């Protein structure tokens, strides 16, 4: 700590030291070492910060022994976490930064220490990343400078120095993949970045810079619930996306979709975010061919049924994207019965008309009738069971069966993707059969409820007659006893 104070004092005392007076630089230039050569291009050198401002010592003394005497506050090369602390001596001090005319935020170290890089450590003595790990040491230039290792066009290389190194990453997190760079280079972002487009997303665009958190951290920009808004930072900005020639309404559509509502409103982590379909490091729009594979990662049975259905060939011939043609992409709505059939709002009627495609038209119409009848039967059964339950009847078993009916209806929605009327009918009929049983049980429970009341009425009448008779009998006995008969 005392060392840091000495360095800070030195910084304050000797700031704005001219290069000509800097004995450290003079001497090291004479030696011809790399740090002094690099430092000439360093942004800090240009702002008048000397070697001694970071390394300590007295830059005014020509005598090397005295200039680099520890009594003169010479620190030498800072090690481990001291490196970031030396940088923070200025970078965490807004006043100091103001003096150098910098508008950089003063919370980088604070962010770094709370980031995954600031928390992880292997040796226990120092944390995994220091300022120089990304920014370099003696040749630091502005992030906007193309020579900077953190410039948008270079940052991918900088990050992957560690992140593509399996040996290195294993020491920190063996389960973390190391193929991000390879994937990135296949992505639209990566391809354009490689061509020199600095506007496209690179590592820091999504993960942040100093404040990078684990993807499992709820505060992380790449936590599943936050991914849509992270992507939307660029993709929803028509100003930023100008020139890319792609729509900017994806987030708006997604947030209203069945997936978006589940993810953003219900915090359902099982719901897909942007990266679930587009990939993350290898982000790209899925091609027509691969759409069903992408959707099929979650909707596996639907994808399988579709692949073996007659629609597969028809879609391929017409170059139609498989799932997207009926369900759309970002604004997928909940699949209700209205998507099926031949009504104007049904997706089947987009291709199947009575005149041009009579067979498909008839099948679609029939399938809709079947699923409607199951829905209606389920509704009736549910009402009956609810009524019986409200009347205090025990209908737990019927309620379980009602779940089977609902399950059959959900299965029928999956079975639609076979576009096979027979298979679809079998699923629906299974549900209809169970619904009929539930309806019967519901009706029986309601009848039983009425029977109980009628039974009670009859029993009450019988008991009342018995009670009155008994009362009269007692009175007669007592009368006889009084009269002595």
């Amino acid at each position, binding site marked *: 700590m005392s060392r840091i104070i000495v360095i800070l004092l030195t910084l304050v005392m000797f700031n704005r030291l001219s290069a000509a007076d800097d004995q450290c630089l003079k001497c090291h230039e004479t030696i011809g070492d790399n740090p002094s050569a690099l430092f000439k291009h360093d942004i800090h050198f240009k702002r008048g910060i000397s070697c001694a401002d970071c390394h300590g010592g007295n830059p005014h003394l020509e005598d090397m022994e005295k200039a680099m005497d520890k009594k003169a506050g010479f620190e030498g090369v800072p090690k481990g976490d001291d490196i970031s602390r030396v940088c923070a001596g200025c970078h965490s001090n807004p006043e100091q930064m103001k003096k150098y005319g910098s508008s950089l935020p003063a919370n980088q170290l604070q962010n770094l220490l709370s980031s995954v890089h600031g928390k992880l450590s292997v040796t226990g003595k120092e944390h995994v990343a220091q300022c120089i790990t990304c920014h370099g040491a003696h040749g630091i230039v502005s992030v906007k400078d193309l020579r900077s290792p953190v410039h948008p066009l270079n940052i991918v290389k900088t990050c992957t120095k560690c992140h593509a190194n399996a040996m290195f990453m294993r020491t920190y997190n063996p389960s973390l993949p190391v193929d991000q760079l390879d994937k990135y280079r296949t992505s639209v972002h990566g391809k354009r970045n490689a061509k020199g487009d600095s506007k496209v997303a690179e590592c820091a665009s999504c993960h942040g810079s100093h404040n990078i958190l684990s993807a499992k951290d709820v505060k992380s920009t790449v936590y599943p619930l936050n991914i849509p808004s992270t992507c939307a930072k660029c993709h929803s900005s028509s100003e930023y996306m100008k020139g890319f020639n792609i729509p900017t309404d994806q987030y708006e559509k997604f947030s209203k979709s069945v997936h978006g509502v589940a993810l953003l409103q219900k915090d359902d982590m099982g719901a897909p975010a942007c990266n679930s379909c587009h990939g993350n490091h290898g982000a790209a729009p899925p091609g027509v061919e691969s759409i069903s594979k992408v959707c099929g990662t979650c909707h596996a049975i639907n994808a399988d049924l579709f692949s073996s259905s007659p629609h597969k060939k028809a879609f391929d011939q017409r170059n139609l994207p498989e799932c997207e043609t009926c369900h759309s992409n970002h604004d997928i709505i909940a699949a209700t019965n209205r998507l099926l059939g031949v009504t104007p709002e049904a997706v089947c009627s987009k291709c199947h008309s009575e005149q041009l495609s009579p067979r498909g038209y008839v099948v679609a119409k029939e399938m809709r009738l079947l699923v409607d009848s199951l829905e209606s039967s389920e509704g009736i059964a549910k009402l009956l069971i609810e009524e019986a339950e409200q009347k*205090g009847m*025990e*209908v*737990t*078993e019927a309620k379980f069966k009602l779940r089977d009916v609902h399950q059959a209806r959900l299965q029928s929605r999956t079975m639609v993707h076979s576009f096979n009327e027979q298979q679809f009918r079998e699923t629906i009929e299974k549900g209809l059969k169970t619904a009929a049983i539930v309806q019967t049980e519901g009706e029986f429970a309601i009848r039983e409820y009425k029977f*109980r*009341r009628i*039974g*009670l009425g009859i*029993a*009450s009448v019988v*008991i*009342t007659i*018995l*009670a009155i008779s*008994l*009362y009269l*009998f*007692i009175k007669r*006995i*007592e009368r006889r*006893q009084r009269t002595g008969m």
Partner: protein
Amino acid sequence: MKTYFKTFYHWIDERVQLEDLVQFLGKKYVPIHRHSIWYYFGGVSLFLFIIQVVTGILLLLYYKSGEELAFESIQFIMSKVQFGWLIRSIHSWTANLFILTAMIHMFSVYFEKSYRKPREITWLTGMLMFFLALGFGFSGYLLPWNELAFFATKVGTDIAGVVPVFGKPIMVFLRGGQEVTGATLSRFFGFHVAVLPGIFTVLLGIHLVLIQRQGMSEPLAREEALAGREKTMPFFPNFLLRDLLLWLIVLNLLAILAVFFPWELGKKADAFASAPAGIKPEWYFLFMFQTLKYIPGKLWILDGEIFGILLFSAGGLLWTLVPFWDRKSNRGEQNKVITYVGLFVIFYIIVLTILGWTA
């Protein structure tokens, strides 16, 4: 028909001397006075106990004890067994009415000071039966193995465990372990259908024999005022038929309760679920439960809960032993202190039960 009946009666009489019993019953008289109405609550309690025995046996035909079977078997009784719903609802309602009528019977005997010599044993057997009835209620409550019963039993046995020295072993004995589990259910089932009915039947036998032997007690004031001029009615058939009339009315009331307010089954017990909010014991334990809530955590050197339990235990013991310390009544003198104590107890029970119910 009459001839057949007479032949049958004669056949029995030849073997067991039935005539003696008929003669005895024919000579037995019940006093008539303005408090006579209270005599009927003993009979109603007996009737409700008989209903409990009959419906309990019927439930036993289908009930299966065990963590995985109890709830399902009651569900089966309620939905599949012919009139199972009626039997179960009547059993549950009767359990509550039985405790209520037994309580009324106990208080009426207390206020009439009918426990005084020579009826001390009748009172003692009655009190023991009342405690057993509470045991019936507590053990029977767990048998459906539903959420409320599970947590009520947990809380109830926890309270028992607080008692110094004996509490912990009693709790472990009741639960069949440290926690309320299937072992507790098996034990409670055993207590409910075998141990408690066995003891209860013996006590009931003694109680009824003593009543028949000693006759109905009369209020002190009446004894003094009407010495030798009392109004009576024959026990048989007058009083017995009146009892029967009341039983019919109670039976109808039970049927109405069972049909209009069928006893709910609730959710199956889950040991890993959190206790439902505002969990309360059955109404007859509510006043004690509520009192324990009001007692501060620490009273002098005693833990508040222990103090409460000791207080109720001492109160219960004093109440049970009233024939032995109420010397005035035993001498045939009026004892107003006893009446005031009784009135206070009733007032306390009613107020604390209402507070507990509305809490």
